[in-house]
């Protein structure tokens, strides 16, 4: 099939603009990124700069990839990263607009690539259990109720892609942060630092310039891992307790 692509091109030292490209003879079996590879191969062969986008595993797990397709984070297929979206989802002759995550806490580096290190800073401020290597007791010392373990796992499936921020009208990072807070906060291993953790991580999140949550729910709709909005409510409860405790 043939497609027309309107792609955001921006280098660090310039304002961005849309450029139009055609993708020709695209196989319906190809992934969306493979379609872009074909466009880039042609550009490179002509000595032109390829379209820059982040990607690595192409299996939907590393969280590197992500941009907006016709305004939707990770494109039209729900519960799926853009690297796992295949061209059979589109039609011959389609015209698609492709642009980077838009959020002030995620500045554009080039074209479709943005800087998501604010997420790492949130983790560095408390998203861990402070256990030194070698200091761990036998794994069976502390059984964990299966329901809690499964719930913690579901929160931990977040791949840190940033789609939730991109989809949020306020560019809030609540879904990501709450997933991280909840993963550890629901396990016995994470109890000692539970309230300090939430308060430090939320502080860092706010300092990084993410917006406030006003319950739009757009984040959950685009999250490729189906991370639930319930974690935001859970985090807010923990935060309230943390405030009461004065941590």
């Amino acid at each position, binding site marked *: 099939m043939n497609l027309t692509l309107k792609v955001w091109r921006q280098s660090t030292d310039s304002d961005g603009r849309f450029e139009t490209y055609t993708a020709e003879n695209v196989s319906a079996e190809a992934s969306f990124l493979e379609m872009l590879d074909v466009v880039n191969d042609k550009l490179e062969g002509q000595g032109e700069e390829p379209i820059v986008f982040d990607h690595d595993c192409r299996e939907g797990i590393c969280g590197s990839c992500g941009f907006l397709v016709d305004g939707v984070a990770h494109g039209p297929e729900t519960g799926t990263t853009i690297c796992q979206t295949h061209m059979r989802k589109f039609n011959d002759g389609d015209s698609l607009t492709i642009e980077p995550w838009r959020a002030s806490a995620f500045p554009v580096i080039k074209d479709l690539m943005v800087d998501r290190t604010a997420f790492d800073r949130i983790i560095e401020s408390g998203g861990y259990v402070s256990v030194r*290597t070698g200091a761990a007791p*036998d794994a069976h010392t502390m059984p964990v109720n299966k329901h809690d373990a499964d719930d913690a796992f579901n929160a931990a499936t977040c791949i840190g892609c940033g789609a939730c921020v991109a989809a949020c009208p306020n560019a809030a990072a609540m879904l990501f942060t709450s997933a991280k807070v909840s993963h550890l906060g629901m396990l016995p291993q994470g109890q000692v630092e539970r309230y300090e953790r939430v308060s430090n991580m939320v502080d860092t999140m706010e300092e990084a310039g993410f917006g406030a949550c006003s319950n739009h729910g757009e984040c959950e709709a685009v999250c490729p891992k189906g991370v639930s909005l319930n974690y935001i409510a859970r985090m807010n409860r923990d935060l309230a307790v943390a405030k009461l405790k004065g941590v």
Partner: protein
Amino acid sequence: MILDGKAPTGDIEEAWDKHRFSIKVVNPSNKRKFKVIVVGTGLAGASAAASMAEMGYQVQTFCYQDSPRRAHSIAAQGGINAAKNYQNDGDSIFRLFYDTVKGGDFRSRERNVYRLAQVSNSIIDQAVAQGVPFAREYSGLLGNRSFGGAQVSRTFYAAGQTGQQLLLGAYQALARQIGLKNVVHHNRTEMQDLILVDGQARGIVTRNLITGQIESHMADAVVLATGGYGNVYYLSTNAMGCNVTAGFQAYKRGAYFANPCYVQIHPTCIPVHGEFQSKLTLMSESLRNDGRVWVPRNKEDVEKPARDIAEADRYYYLEERYPAFGNLVPRDVAARNSKYVCDEGLGVGHKVNGERRAVYLDFAEAIKRDGEDAIREKYGNLFHMYSKITGENPYKVPMRIYPAVHYTMGGLWVDYNLMSNVPGLHVIGEANFSDHGANRLGASALMQGLADGYFVLPYTIGNFLWSERPKPLTNDCAEAQQAVADVKGRINTLMDIKGGKPVDYFHRQLGKVMYDKVGISRSGAGLKEALEQIPAIREEFWKNVSVPGKANSLNPALEKAGRVADFLEFAEVLAHDAHDRDESAGGHFREEHQTEEGEAKRNDEDFSYVAAWGYQGVGVKPELHKEPLSFDYVKLSQRSYK
């Protein structure tokens, strides 16, 4: 030259304890004086960096992604082994050790493997304490599964994403140390060269992938944790950025590359769909527990819909050829047989470059026997992934699978202390050659990466640092300046070619030669051809590659070009190793050496050694150094799956 792995002698059970006692220990106040560079922050690098920083060392880390959390360790699905014996099925450290040595087809160092089995249990304890959400039973205790044909259930897992959960644990430990300013981390920074001073590894040259800046970083020791080289085959289950550059540049500076020909080809991956395919996706091997592998018996049927092919016209080749193990034969045996039936023209699915390279993995019988719900319960996420990628419903039509390059057992040579032959250069995780011999068992790479990073290297590196006490150096010492100039020179040469072909064109060509001649099944004659074809592609690359953009800014084409340039040299080393190893062992199958039943036939008399290759110049056959292997605890035997 004969190499010495310096493994301790004496009782294998006590060797590691005694060794730890005998090596030098750095006292806490002195640790603060030492700087360590860790390149790569996957499972191996992140766990090592976090542990060393906790101990007091000054650590700097580097990765090419935008965050340590994205290293390709994240993609591991199946699980991680440990000898906990929580299932009370007779597992033990000795059994895990025994299985791993045997699984590696007797081409690994016994004492390293024993240590790996010994520390395996601590890894699970550490991960659980970090909050890694492993699967649990209703009792609240950890669940296990049996994996990769093991006779005991010793694999710990977190649904289909054990890799991501373990990596998040190690990444969080690292993030904590970054937050505490004990580690300085550099994202989007690629190592391009190793700096030697007085014969010791004292620093690295990096390229900042955003600004293009070339810089040197100095330290008292350098650790490479840069993962595997599977992408030398172009298509593999590795991430797009996985590369051999760090290890290969170290090799060019004098480090030996060991056993590069030991490559694991995984039998159950989603087949190639077209020429512009960029990578292959693994389907967990657990699928072979219930799926039956077949192709049509007659060439006329290969285009027919699978369900229209009569039962009598289906060739269940694994079940017929290996009645005892059937569909559960080891990875290499399953992979090889799939290749053979496709070579015979019995392959199914898409025609790519005039060939059909896929076989069926059929669940019809299992669904009929256990019901669709039971199958969904077991494999739902895998079936979902398959249907997303292929657009087909595997509950209704059989899956199509084909082998793909998956893991590389070879890597830089290291001794028992995980130090290479270059003093100060340590290598951990998939980047070293250590514990898997000629073939890796399922769920043991995560174990090895974390064993190296949490429980081995943080001790053994102290031995080097305290015996040598390297003298302080600055970033602008003559050796660093020279290495920086070398890197800039290489980049300028690439930029100046201004040819007419994109980088991927050459990578694809290389991949084709590697799969055809240095892949699942190899022959002396084929390897000779590869040794002629690889240099020809390399020559054409240096004449005709197009690298647009600028050297001093973000430039993905330049990143790829640098990696492919190294693959084009490394491929030749790999092919030389495969040619030289005139036997079959594990993942290395030489057609000339098979039993009457077509199984891999080792030659222990002549080849029971580690082949460690030393650089002699581009296009020149490297020099072979041998580390002899002896087996005192596991008796040498030939595998049989009939």
